[in-house]
């Protein structure tokens, strides 16, 4: 989100009826949202295809564990 601004955060706070009320809270929330976005944008670097099903994770972990156990 390139255009993340304090005003946008403020409008979403109103839209979602969040509880931050004063300037300090808004400033801290904006800082936290910005902080999150500075990390989250890196997800775009992972190349994803339609076959990348989020449910694959647990099965993947199980299979990796099975392979290791067999090797032992």
């Amino acid at each position, binding site marked *: 989100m390139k255009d993340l601004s304090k005003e946008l955060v403020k409008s979403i706070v109103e839209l979602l009826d969040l509880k931050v009320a004063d300037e300090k809270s808004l400033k801290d929330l904006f800082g*936290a949202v910005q902080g999150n976005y500075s990390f989250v944008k890196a997800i775009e670097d992972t190349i994803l295809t339609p076959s990348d099903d989020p449910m694959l994770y647990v099965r993947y972990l199980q299979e990796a564990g099975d392979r290791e156990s067999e090797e032992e």
Partner: protein
Amino acid sequence: MKKSNLLYERLTTLASKIREGEVSPRGLVNALLERIKETEDKVKAYVTLTGEEARRTAEKAEKEIQRGQYRGLLHGIPVSIKDLMDTKGVKTTYGSRIFRENIPNEDATVVKKLKEAGAIMLGKTNTHEFALGGITPPTRNPWGLDRIPGGSSGGSAAAIAAGSALTTLGSDTGGSIRIPASYCGVVGLKPTYGLVSRAGVFPESWSLDHVGPITRYVEDSAVMLQFIAGYDEKDPATRKRKIPDYVADLQNSVEGLRAGVPRNHFFEHVDREVLSAVRQAIKVLERLGMSIHELTVPAIDGIMGAYTALDSAEVAANHRRIYAEHAHEYMYESKVYIEAGFFISATQYIDSLRARPKLTAQVLEAMKDVDVMLTPSQPIVAPKIGEKEAFIDGYKEDLMLTMVRFLAPFNLTGLPALSICCGFNSDNLPVGLQIIGKPFQESTVLRVGHYYEQATEWHKRLAKVPL
């Protein structure tokens, strides 16, 4: 042996003495309650004590054992439980004022398993509010009462360090077992995702939450894992797997094992004394016959990004209803944490879930030629109460990020990770070493930690509380 010395014994030693009738569970409970009385006004590790019930259960355990109905290593052993976990008939606050009168009707699965093994619940340990932070007020660090114990399982780790608990449970979503284990100089194990049930544990983030032991010795963590691991129909993440004999496996040698040491991320912006202690620890493991190999952990930015999106969005979703009614009863920092989660978009969240197997595969590929990976548990020692930022050789960072950046990658990838004490800085504050393994290879991780512990003396140093 004096009663107080019993509080620093290994669980296997205590179990043997209990079985032989040399130590009574009631004596253990009483010794712990005495120690709690000595330390609690300073350390504040507990939110609820169940002393009377513990005495009754201890008496029952004694009779069972005398009748030859010995159940195993935890029979007659007092345990302390993080207050994020439901305990039947015992107040469970989740660290929140909102749940100050909450009394669950059922035990969390892990609590139930410990009780079935004959363990005696001594009390509930403090947690950061809903596990949403690493400070754990009002608990203090037994190694320095002006310092935080870490969190969110800060009460459990502080109780072990203060000698006011023999063994405990914690939970870990971005480091909440390993942060306090590192800061309090004790042992904390985050098992593989899916090995230990989270049913009955108040969720922070369903896809990142783990439950595990916080103990004095690595062997004690192996004992605890033995009893809490396994499939649970109430937790859809748990897998049906054969549970190894974690305690017996500790006896296998570490000679020939291969350890990877990341050349990126995990050794950047680390306090000099912490770095020195961790480097020394790696040399110890090398002397024990392990070979050391440099490697690069790929896609750290993607891992931290996916972790942030999953954690933030799931926290917001989980708290949405409670927060709508009780926002005024949350800590200020929790409010900001929860509200920031509403700003994660659906596509960011879903792409994080989709990226997760790929990122995990990349980490496992980086680890393909090693058995474990070694990193500092924390870039720093326990911060002073009230500090919000870490300063590391001129580098300034938000304290929450400092606490999670070496640990959260293994919540996202689900790999088992152990924190053990590997030294002390010049202020006598503990330093943690993190040992990461491959999926469901807890035996290997524990073995490396156990051999290191046997070869060093750090675990013998005791926090002097009261000061």
